[in-house]
C-alpha cells in the first residue's frame, strides 16, 4: 500500500474537481481526483485517503451507491457528500448514510469548502485515534457514546425527545472537537422554524472559518440556550447536557426520527 494521501475528490464535473484540488492544495493538502465512482474505487485499491469528497449525482454509480460499495469493501474512509441538487432529503440521507460524515450543497465558496474539509479531516483523525485506542469498530456512531435516548444526525448534532412533547437539540462532542476552538455561535431565535438537514446555526472558529450546524429535527424554536450562545466553551465541555442549543416543538417527529440513529 502506498503512502496515505489526504483527499480524494470524485465528481463528473472536471472544473469542480480541479477547483477543489486547487483550494485544498493551497492549504498544503495532497489531493487526488476521480471522474466517476469506478475510477475512485480503482484508486482506493492502491491508495489510502483520510477523506473523500463525493458528488451525489453521477452517471452509473451515484454517490449513495458508491457509499454502499465502500461498506461492502470494508473501506472506512469518511466521505463528504456534495450535490447541486440540494434538497432536505439529499442532505439528511447523506448525513445518515454509513460512511458520510458531512454534506455540502453546491455551489460553495473556498472558505465554506475549507471549513468543512478541515472539520472533517480533524474528525477523521479523531476517529482514527479512537480506532487505534481499540474502541468499537463502527466508528462514527460510537466515538464518544452519547447518553441513551439521544438521536443523532451523523456525528454532527443530536436531538432528545422530552416527555412534554418538546425536544432538545444540540451538537455532538465529535463535531465540537472537529472544529478548532469556537469563537462564537450564531443561533436562530425563538419562534424560528428549523428544518431537518438544513443549517440551524453557525459556529465561527478561531481560524475564521464558519461551520454550519445541520439540524437533526424539524420544529419551531421555543427556547434558545443563552448560556451556550454567550459561553461557547460550555458547549465544548458539556455538549449533551448543559450545552444544549435549542428547545423545539417538533413539527414532524415521527418521520424525522426514522432518519436518526440512537
Amino acid at each position, binding site marked *: 500500500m502506498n503512502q496515505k494521501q489526504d483527499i480524494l475528490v470524485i465528481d463528473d464535473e472536471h*472544473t469542480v474537481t480541479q477547483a477543489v484540488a*486547487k483550494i485544498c492544495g*493551497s492549504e498544503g493538502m495532497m489531493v487526488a481526483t476521480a471522474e466517476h465512482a469506478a475510477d475512485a474505487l480503482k484508486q482506493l485499491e492502491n491508495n489510502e485517503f483520510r477523506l473523500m469528497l463525493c458528488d451525489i449525482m453521477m452517471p452509473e454509480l451515484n454517490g449513495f451507491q458508491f457509499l454502499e460499495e465502500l461498506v461492502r469493501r470494508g473501506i472506512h474512509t469518511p466521505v463528504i457528500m456534495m450535490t447541486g*441538487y*440540494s434538497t432536505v432529503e439529499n442532505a439528511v440521507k447523506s448525513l445518515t448514510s454509513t460512511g458520510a460524515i458531512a454534506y455540502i450543497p453546491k*455551489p*460553495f465558496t473556498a472558505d465554506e469548502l475549507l471549513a468543512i474539509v478541515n472539520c472533517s479531516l480533524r474528525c477523521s483523525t479523531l476517529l482514527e485515534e479512537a480506532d487505534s485506542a481499540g474502541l468499537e469498530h463502527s466508528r462514527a456512531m460510537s466515538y464518544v457514546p452519547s447518553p441513551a435516548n439521544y438521536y443523532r444526525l451523523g456525528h454532527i448534532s443530536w436531538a432528545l425527545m422530552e416527555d412534554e412533547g418538546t425536544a432538545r437539540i444540540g451538537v455532538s462532542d465529535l463535531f465540537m472537537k472537529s472544529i478548532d476552538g469556537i469563537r462564537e455561535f450564531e443561533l436562530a431565535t425563538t419562534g424560528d*422554524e428549523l*428544518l431537518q438537514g438544513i443549517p440551524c446555526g453557525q459556529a465561527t472558529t478561531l481560524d475564521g472559518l464558519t461551520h454550519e450546524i445541520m439540524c437533526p429535527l424539524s420544529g419551531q424554536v421555543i427556547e434558545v440556550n443563552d448560556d451556550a450562545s454567550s459561553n461557547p466553551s460550555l458547549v465544548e465541555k458539556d455538549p449533551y447536557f448543559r450545552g444544549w442549543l435549542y428547545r423545539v416543538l417538533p413539527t414532524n417527529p415521527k418521520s424525522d426520527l426514522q432518519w436518526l440513529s440512537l
Partner: protein
Amino acid sequence: MLLNSKIGLRLTFGAVLTILIAIAIFAYFNIQSQNRTLLTEVERHATEFSEHLKSDMRYDMMHADRSRIQAGILRIGSQETIEIINVFNKDGEVIYSSDLSSVGKMVTIEAATCFRCHLTGEPLKNLKKQEHVRIFRHAPDSQRTMGIINPIYNEESCWTANCHAHPESQTVLGVLDVTIPLTEVDETIRQSQVAITMLAISAIIVLSVMIGFLVRWWIDRPVRDLLTATREIAGGNLNYRVEVKREDEIGMLGKSFNSMTDNLADARLQLFQSDKLASLGRLAAGVAHEINNPLTAVLTNSSYLLKRSEGSPEMNDDLKVIVSETIRCREIVKSLLDFSRQTVPKKRKADINQIIHRAATVVENQLSMRQVELVMDLDDALPSATVDANQIQQVFINLLVNACDAIGDGGGTIKVSSKVISLGPAGTLQIKRALCRKRHDLVDRKVQVDGKPAISMRFRKGKQTGLIHLDPMYGSSGHQLGDMPDLKEDVDLMCPDCSASLIAEGETCPQCGSPIYVFEVPLKGLVQGCLQSGCGWHRWEQADSAWDDEYVEIQVTDDGCGIPKSQLPKLFEPFMSTKGQKGTGLGLAVTWGIVDNHNGTIVVDSEVDVGTTFTIRIPVGI
C-alpha cells in the same frame, strides 16, 4: 331513424298523431250527427206533409169523388219538392198518382213500398212510425230519394158511407206513398261535410304547427343547447356555458349543468396547475443541478482568488463583485427550488392579517406613486392559520402588484378583505379506516370507488350473498352495490371477516327509507349512512359537529382593466403574462403553487374594464 334521434320530433309526432285522431273522430261523429238531424227533420216534414195530404183527401174519399182526388194529387204532386205521389189500393194497384201514366199499374209485394208490411206472411196492420220512411236510389248512380208510406186505415165512416165501397172487416184500405227527392238535403249534407273536413284539416295543421313550434322552443332548443354544451365540455372546452333564460326544470338543468361545469373547470384547473407546477419543479430541479456545477467552478475559483488577492485592492474589489454575484445566483436557484416545492414550506401559526399588513408595507411606495388607494376590510377575529408566513406574504405581494398593474396610471382602489368561513366535512373528508364491532378494518385497498379505497361489506339475502363497496368520501354516495337484491327487502350486511352485522337495527334512512349501514372510525365515533346509491344521507356526529373545517378567506379586489375571459384559464400557468414585456409570467404560477402547498385554493373572477377579484382560501389547520 330520424324519430329515434330527435326527442322534439318524437314529441311533436306523438302530439300531432293524438290531435289527428281526436279531430278525425270528432269530425266523423259531427258529420254523422248532422246527417241524422237533417234527415230526421226532412222525415218529420215529409210525414207531416203526408198526413196533411191524407186529411186533405179525406173529404173527397168520403164522397168517393175520384176525379177530385186525382186532381188534388196531380196538383200537389206537381210541386218541385215532390217526386211522385201514389195511392195504392189493397191489391197493389196504383189508383191515384201524380204521374198519370202510373195509374192502374200493379206493384208486387216485393216492391219497396209494400215489403215492409208484407215481409212476413201476415201483413202488419200497424207499422212503426220510423219504418214508414225509406231512403233509396232509383239507380245506383242516381240521387237519393225518400219515400213515406202512409197507410189509409178503415174507419166507421168508410164502411158506413153511402158508396159502401169498403167492407168493415178490411183494416187497411190503401197506402199513400209520397216520394221526395233528397237532392237539396244531400247537397246541404255534402257542403257541411266539406266544411267540417276543411275545419278539421285546418285545425290539425294549425295545432301541429303550433305544437311543433312550442316543442321546438320549449324543449328542442334548450335540449339541443344542453347537448351542444355537453359535447363542448366532453371535447374539453370547459369555458362553455349554457345560456339560462328560464326558471323551469330545463332552466334548472342548465343552471346545474353550468355549476357542475364550473366545479369541473375549477377542479381541472387546480389539477392542471398541480401538474404544471410539478413539471416546473422537475424542470427547476434539473436546471438547478446543471447550473450549480458551473456555478461551483465560478464560486470556488473566484473565492479562492479573492483569498489570494488581498494584496491587490483593485483586483480584490472586482473579485468581491464576482463572488457576491455568484452567491446571489446561488440564492436565486435556491429560491426557484423553494417555489417549485422541492422544499417543504416552513409552516407555523401566523396571523394572516398581520401578513397582509406586512405585504402592504412592501408595496406601499408603488401604490402611492400610482395614486392607488388600498382599502382594508380585515376581520379582527381571524384565527391564526398554520402557514409559511414568508410564502403567504409573497402571495399577497404578487396579488397587490398585479392589482396595481391592472389599475395602471389613472389611479384606483384595491380592496383587501379577510374573513373566516366554515366548510363542512361532507364531500371533503375521506374515511380511511372503518371498523366493524370486532375491530376488523372494512377499508379494502383492492377495490376503489372514484380512485379511493372502498369500504367493503358482505350482504346476505336468503341464500344469496356477495360483496358491496361503499364510497369512502363522507357524504358521497357513489356506492357500488353489485348484484345486491332490492334494498327494500330484508337485506343483512356483515363484516367480510367476522360476519358481525353492519346494519343499523330498526332504523331507516329518513330521506328514502333504505337500510342504514353503520361502522366505527377509530377514535372518531360511529358513522351512519344510507345504503341507497345516490341518496347521500349520512350522520357522523363528531365530524358533523366538530369537524367543520375552518378556512381563512382573503379577497383582493381591484377596479383595474380586468382580464379577458379567454385568458382566465391560462392565468396560473407558468410563463403566462398579461403584462407583455413587463412581467415574467411566473408571479401567479408561484402564487398558485404556494396556495396549493398550503392545501388552499385560489379562484379568480374578472370582468374587463370593471375589475378583478382573487379569492384565496387557506385551511386554518391544527
